[in-house]
């Protein structure tokens, strides 16, 4: 902790490169036996590296050069996308991982920082998607604005829950969010204006006449139309990541931690508990809603059954798996949770079983998640 010297950025860059190459290999390989071999090999490498103490250097170098390494991570993501520029399936998978990361970052602000457990994550995601469906069909609003409105509407719908969430604590508040998820699903199913159980089509994104649902052709070079969505999703994740990072590394992040850990002590030092719980809940739902709005446009379709309690649990399990409070952990966990079951076609029907096993294993052996949250450093790289 009290290192006086900056660690070099190289260990982390090497690690990122290996991770990117590994991800490309995992996404490219189709044969089930090879995929299983890759997964087992990957786990073995990580465990061995941890055993040999190599990961200590990597994490030190990560925490000292976070901004530069964030840039490297963006380059790695772009490289992966370019490598698969014609592959609809892989690009959709990558976009899903990016947008689920954004949603889980929102959940992280609520649960990881403020301690407000939200089991209706998928519902707020769905509200974003429905917003896109309705606004793209009936209005000519610019689609980037539609994304923003999706976030705002999710936050607004979430504010219906504020009173019960603020009045109850811990598990009781969680039950309230579950009730909300069930109510919303039922409401959507019986409401014909919003398509009922069949759901609605969502028109694809179009920015300044650039239609996102056409494949990109530059001369003889062509790319999947998903490339458009990939770029916007990556941008959204970068913005959300910076927002959540800054939030954590500010007095607001400190307030949220203080009230989560000891509400009574926090209020003895002047913290307005209600104000900060509301702030965290609204910011979280806003992020989830934006991600949902974009996801609706990517998929082209929304229905009540796409956003069920099981999907909310999936978001919560990503948070538990990655490390509550650590945005980097969330991205790693999202990649694992989204990519692995899709590639392992053999286990398709057992995917929820796999999630459950992963979460149980993490809670047992690494209760703080794959990448536990480090102590807050307001300005990484600053020496005392």
């Amino acid at each position: 902790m009290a290192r006086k010297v900056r660690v070099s950025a190289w260990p982390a860059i090497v690690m990122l490169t290996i991770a990117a190459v590994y991800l490309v290999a995992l996404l490219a390989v189709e044969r089930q036996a090879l995929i299983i071999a890759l997964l087992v090999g990957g786990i073995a490498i990580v465990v061995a590296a941890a055993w040999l103490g190599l990961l200590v250097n990597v994490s030190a170098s990560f925490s000292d050069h976070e901004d530069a390494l964030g840039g490297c991570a963006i380059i790695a993501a772009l490289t992966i996308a370019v490598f698969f520029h014609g592959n609809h399936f892989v690009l959709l998978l990558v976009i899903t991982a990016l947008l689920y990361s954004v949603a889980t970052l929102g959940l992280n602000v609520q649960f990881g920082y403020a301690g407000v457990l939200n089991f209706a994550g998928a519902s707020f995601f769905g509200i974003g998607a429905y917003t896109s469906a309705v606004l793209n069909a009936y209005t000519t609003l610019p689609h980037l604005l539609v994304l923003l409105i999706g976030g705002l509407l999710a936050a607004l719908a979430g504010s219906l829950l504020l009173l019960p969430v603020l009045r109850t604590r811990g598990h009781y508040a969680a039950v309230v969010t579950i009730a909300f998820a069930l109510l919303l699903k039922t409401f959507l199913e019986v409401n014909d204006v919003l398509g009922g159980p069949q759901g609605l089509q969502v028109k694809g994104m179009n920015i300044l006449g650039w239609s996102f649902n056409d494949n990109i052709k530059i001369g003889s070079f062509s790319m999947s139309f998903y490339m458009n969505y990939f770029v916007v999703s990556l941008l959204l994740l970068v913005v959300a990541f910076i927002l959540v990072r800054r939030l954590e590394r500010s007095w607001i992040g400190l307030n949220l931690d203080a009230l989560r850990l000891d509400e009574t002590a926090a209020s003895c030092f002047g913290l307005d508990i209600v104000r900060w719980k509301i702030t965290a809940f609204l910011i979280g739902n806003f992020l989830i809603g934006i991600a949902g709005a974009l996801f609706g446009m990517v998929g082209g379709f929304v229905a009540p059954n796409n956003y069920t309690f099981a999907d909310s649990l999936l978001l919560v399990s990503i948070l538990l798996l990655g490390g509550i409070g650590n945005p980097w952990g969330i991205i790693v966990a999202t990649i694992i949770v989204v990519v692995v079951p899709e590639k392992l076609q053999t286990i398709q029907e057992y995917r929820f079983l796999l999630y459950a096993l992963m979460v149980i294993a993490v809670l047992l052996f690494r209760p703080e998640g794959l990448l536990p949250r480090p102590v807050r450093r307001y300005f990484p790289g600053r020496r005392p």
Partner: protein
Amino acid sequence: MTALLEARGLSKHFGGVLALDRLDLAVAQNEILGLIGPNGSGKTTFFNVITGIYSADAGRVTFDSADVTNASGRTIYQAGMSRTFQRSRLSLPLSIFDNIMIGNHKRLKQGLWFNLVKRRDFKRQFEEGYAAARGLVEVFEPALADRLFEPVAGLPMIDRRRIEICRALISSPKLLLLDEPSAGMTHEETAELMNDILLVRARHENLTIIIVEHEMGVIERITNRCVVLNFGRKIAEGPYRTVAADAQVQEAYLGAA
């Protein structure tokens, strides 16, 4: 002599138990008042009622010539009262710096725009806070000053007490409430801690202290005056030597002869 804090007829009951029974208590500016009494005599309840954790059933509290009866913890903190807890209530996973800054809440800008966007201004306030926290910690334990970004969880009890006191002092309160600062510590550690508190007090003028303590050596050494509680009622008041000799006080502590 103007009273900084004055409670009149303060009562609080939990079910059938009277924890505070029409208590009248006043602390003068710059005084160090010892609040003593057997276990369960209402000392901590008194702290909890005046800091807004419990609400009083009857009576009034004035602080710094304002009525703060049943005011919220926030209002009372803003008015310049801060406290430590009998059982240390630090946020263990957070760093020393974070814990102390929780106590500095009223000086920190809380706007979203300031915190998320104006990072340069935030950095300036952060550096101010860092310098203040470091300066305060140095008084108590210079070795801790270089470890401000380590989690509190790994620290021994005495360091946790020091940090809790730093958290209460960082906002330069007018009144400091210490709830059994010696709990869980040795005689020597307690003596050291008290010296440090007196040192801080000598630097900041106008710091009034109410201390709840079972360690009578501490009470004798640092207080100007004592109030003795028994079953929520004031049974004696005066300099330590006088109250220690009081027959009622001796009976409360040792039982009837």
